[in-house]
């Protein structure tokens, strides 16, 4: 019997979850807990694991969507600037409500992601439609601009809130708790279901608007719905843990290498793979140099940046065509 990639990935996920429960400043045997260890697991490690799974899963699916819709292997919420837009709007919310706006932050992040997506797409298109290179440049430019505003806001804000916001921006899950989880899971669920419902559009758009039209679809409508799905997912991820790069870039490629490019398989497996990768990155970040914690976003960037450069090289050499 052929081993299904889904089962292999679920198996890997199980291992990562066990590692993540066990490792940290104190090594714990999750099958034999004393009351203090139980408290550590329930109050500290479990919320972090759940946040990492939801956040990484959202990023993986958002990346899979954006790469297909824009026919660009280098697209993801971070590269296209939508993460920065969501983070800026969310940061305003955090500062304005002194950190109490638990329900407000995901919605503001969604607004930021939607507005940024709209601006980047409109800058990335010309009379003939969306251009891959143009879109990428627009996204990078907008992303830098919004990040600069975010830095500016934080350097002007009160000192005590800033450190938390800075760590949050770097994708630090140390502060993860249950408060944002319900609202963010809702956004993630909507985004994921919407993307799955438009899987045919996602497949067809990856082959170009004319092919999609020939297959009986309306390319403009499909693109709008799919970018909406990606924005929901980006907002969920930013609300959960700030900006984490490269998960959305790497995971869909790894998944496609395993199972091909069909969205029916790529979307669910990117969700699992993204959650697994971020959970692993967070576990590594808090285990390698105790008591220092390296933010998960820093760990993913340390792996992701070289990966990005390899992708770029393959893309420019025509290997991706």
């Amino acid at each position: 019997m052929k081993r299904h990639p889904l089962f292999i990935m679920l198996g890997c996920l199980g291992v990562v979850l066990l590692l993540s429960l066990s490792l940290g400043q104190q090594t714990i045997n999750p099958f034999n807990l004393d009351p203090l260890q139980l408290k550590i697991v329930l109050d500290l490690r479990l919320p972090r694991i759940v946040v990492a799974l939801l956040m990484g899963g959202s990023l993986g699916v958002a990346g899979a969507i954006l790469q297909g819709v824009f026919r660009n292997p280098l697209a993801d919420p971070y590269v296209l600037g939508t993460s920065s837009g969501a983070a800026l709007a969310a940061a305003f919310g955090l500062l304005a409500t002194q950190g109490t706006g638990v329900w407000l932050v995901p919605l503001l992040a969604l607004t930021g992601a939607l507005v940024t997506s709209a601006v980047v797409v409109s800058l990335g298109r010309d009379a003939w439609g969306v251009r891959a290179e143009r879109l990428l440049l627009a996204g990078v430019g907008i992303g830098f601009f919004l990040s600069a505003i975010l830095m500016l806001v934080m350097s002007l804000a009160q000192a005590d809130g800033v450190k938390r916001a800075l760590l949050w921006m770097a994708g630090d899950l140390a502060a993860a708790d249950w408060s944002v989880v319900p609202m963010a899971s809702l956004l993630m669920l909507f985004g994921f279901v919407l993307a799955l419902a438009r899987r045919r559009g996602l497949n067809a758009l990856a082959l170009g608007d004319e092919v999609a039209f020939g297959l009986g679809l309306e390319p403009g409508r499909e693109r709008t719905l799919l970018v909406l799905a990606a924005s929901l997912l980006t907002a969920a991820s930013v609300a959960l843990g700030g900006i984490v790069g490269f998960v959305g870039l790497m995971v869909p490629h790894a998944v496609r290498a395993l199972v091909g490019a069909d969205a029916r398989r790529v979307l669910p497996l990117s969700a699992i793979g993204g959650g697994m990768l971020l959970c692993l990155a967070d576990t590594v970040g808090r285990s390698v140099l105790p008591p220092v914690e390296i933010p998960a976003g820093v760990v993913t960037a340390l792996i992701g940046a070289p990966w990005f450069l390899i992708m770029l090289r393959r893309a420019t050499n025509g290997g991706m065509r």
Partner: protein
Amino acid sequence: MSSLRFDQVCFSYGSAPCVVQFSCNLAKGELVGLIGANGSGKSTLLRLGAGLLTPTVGQVQLDGKPVRSWKGEERATRLGYLPQSIEAPLPFRVGELVEMGRAAARKDHLLSCKEVLAAVGLEGHEQTPLAQISGGERRRAFIAMILAQGGKTLLLDEPLAGLDLRYQYELLTLLRSLCQTHNLTVMISLHDLILARNLDRLLVIRQGQLLADGLPTEILTQQLVQQTFDLDPGFQVAGIGG
């Protein structure tokens, strides 16, 4: 009984006229070739036929209804359209393309996934990534996708470009047999005048206007070819009669 009908169709990108007063009727079972110089409006005509573009004047009718008035899924079940160049930046596999074609159509498929792949000479390649096959094989994989849609009218923009001699003839033979056995209507644009002689009917266009329409053996003359491609009067094209 016509399957695709162009009725006094005019179209312009901006102010430059691209298709001028074009009328023709494609009958069921016909394998039709579209001949013309670069920029003469071949691709635009195929896009108008597929409903991608709306005529500025006139109408394109598919199975008795304006092509743009069919709902997407119904249109895809009736008509397959393959653009000239397709970029596939993601690592799709051959079988996944065929699946996409099948998913576009609703009901009884003309050919099974296996039959479609066999028809284009890619049997057993379901799991092969597009990046690992040659340009010609990739083109055949996309033709398999269009065939899997099961439409009775196919509009293919230069499907023979990039194929070697054998597959050019094999693809033409396949299209011809589909026309005969399944009563398909196929219109392709092409540049090879020798291959064009194997078709049922040729439409020759110049600057968006229909120059000639008829049996290849009857209309393809040195004079018509010179006129179509703006050649010097002394230029003789090999293989074309006087």
